[in-house]
């Protein structure tokens, strides 16, 4: 293991060789910490246990303990992002932005689930499969048609006929 060279060539250090603030990690720490604080406050809105039922440990105690641990860990994560060690700087890769295709794919997944609600299962399956395949750069149109036609038929046979699931319909 050639540690020295790794630190030199690592992206987590500035030209002087000092570790830089790890932004992505800091953002994570803020999101996790902020979320945990929010949920911690939410525990105060839990319904109260009526007196005749109150016994033992209350409903909010355990979640609060876990949230405190999460907050502590988030602070630790944030501190390490602000003051990284040379070791962690060596492994640190500044985050590239999320590729557009991820958002587009995620959008299609969401549309599929929405489609289940409105246009029914089988049309959604056909549209979603073809759209995602095209989005991902598949251009063998014949193969797309055949594969997903067979697949949709199989889905129908399996869920509707064999398993008696009432798939959503229009």
């Amino acid at each position, binding site marked *: 293991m050639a540690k020295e060279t790794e630190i030199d060539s690592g992206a987590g250090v500035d030209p002087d060789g000092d570790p830089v603030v790890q932004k992505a990690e800091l953002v994570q720490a803020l999101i996790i910490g902020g979320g945990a604080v929010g949920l911690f406050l939410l525990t105060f809105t839990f*319904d109260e246990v*009526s*007196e*005749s*039922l109150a*016994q*033992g440990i209350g409903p909010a105690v355990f979640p609060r303990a876990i949230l405190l641990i999460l907050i502590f860990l988030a602070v630790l994560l944030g501190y390490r992002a602000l003051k990284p060690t040379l070791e962690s700087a060596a492994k640190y890769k500044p985050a590239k932005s999320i590729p557009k295709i991820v958002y587009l794919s995620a959008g299609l997944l969401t549309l599929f689930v929405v489609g289940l609600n409105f246009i029914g299962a089988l049309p959604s399956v056909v549209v979603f499969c073809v759209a995602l395949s095209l989005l991902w750069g598949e251009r063998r149109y014949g193969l797309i048609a055949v594969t997903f036609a067979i697949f949709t038929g199989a889905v129908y046979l399996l869920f509707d006929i064999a398993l*008696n699931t*009432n798939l959503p319909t229009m």
Partner: protein
Amino acid sequence: MKNLPILATALSALLFAAPTQAQSNFPSQDIEVINNSKPGGGTDIFLRFATAEASKILGAKMLVISKTGGVATNALKYVASKPRDGHTVFSLLPGHLLTIMRGTTDLTIDDIVPVVRGTIDPELFVVKADAFNSVKELVATSKTRSIKIGGTKVGGNAHVASIILARKAGIEKYTYVPFRKSGEIVLNIASGRIDAALLNFDEVVSQLKSGSVKILASMTPKRLSALPDVPTGHEVGIPYNAAVIRGIGVMKGTPEPVIAALEKAFTEGMNKPSYLKYLNGAGQSASSIAGRAEWTAQIKEMYANFQEIGEELELLKKKK
């Protein structure tokens, strides 16, 4: 192959000719049976047995579907959203009544038509074999230390039943210990970690036979034929009847002939050997089965009782 749908229609018309003539055209499609608890649980199993014969009698497929959430909130909401033509029926349990009382649905007790009752699984007061000899002894002990009563989730049926039991028996100090799986309860009684619990016959029968637990009383009006030596609660100072009661209901607005057809099919089906075997396995007799009249009266009575106890226990405290 174009003729296939027509052929199928003709065939089904032939097959279902007899029943369809009698009551308009019910059933004209599969019947959904909505279970308010998890697949594989006690209610699911009850519905599987209840529908197996009834679907044959009606000549329609019956699909048991679980809709859990908010005790019976999701189940009732789902049923209410469906046409009231008898093609959607649901498991009807005391939990449904509690759900209606809590007001998490827009339904009232009058929106529900009880069709048939399928089980009365009596609650048995169970303790470790060598721990207590009688209810009296247990009550005496409760003056000096807290009796640990096991059960399922707090706020659920078993919990409410345990509170009433403790009150009626005069148990002074007690702690309710909730468990996730009912199997754990009998195990913790047998190992002496907890003192007692209300359990059903099928939950204790094995441990009873091996002699590690003992039944102090059955919470029934009469002694059980499966346990002739066990006194009833009334005999030993706990004037209280408790049981896991399960039945089937439909929504108000379902046509009378359809309700009658469902009642007939379920009652007949439940009197077939396979269902009676199921009852027998749970230590019950055929008297668990009851038609619409008896089941409706019981539901009304339970509802009234719950309102009384519920207010007392503040179980119905509305959300802020």
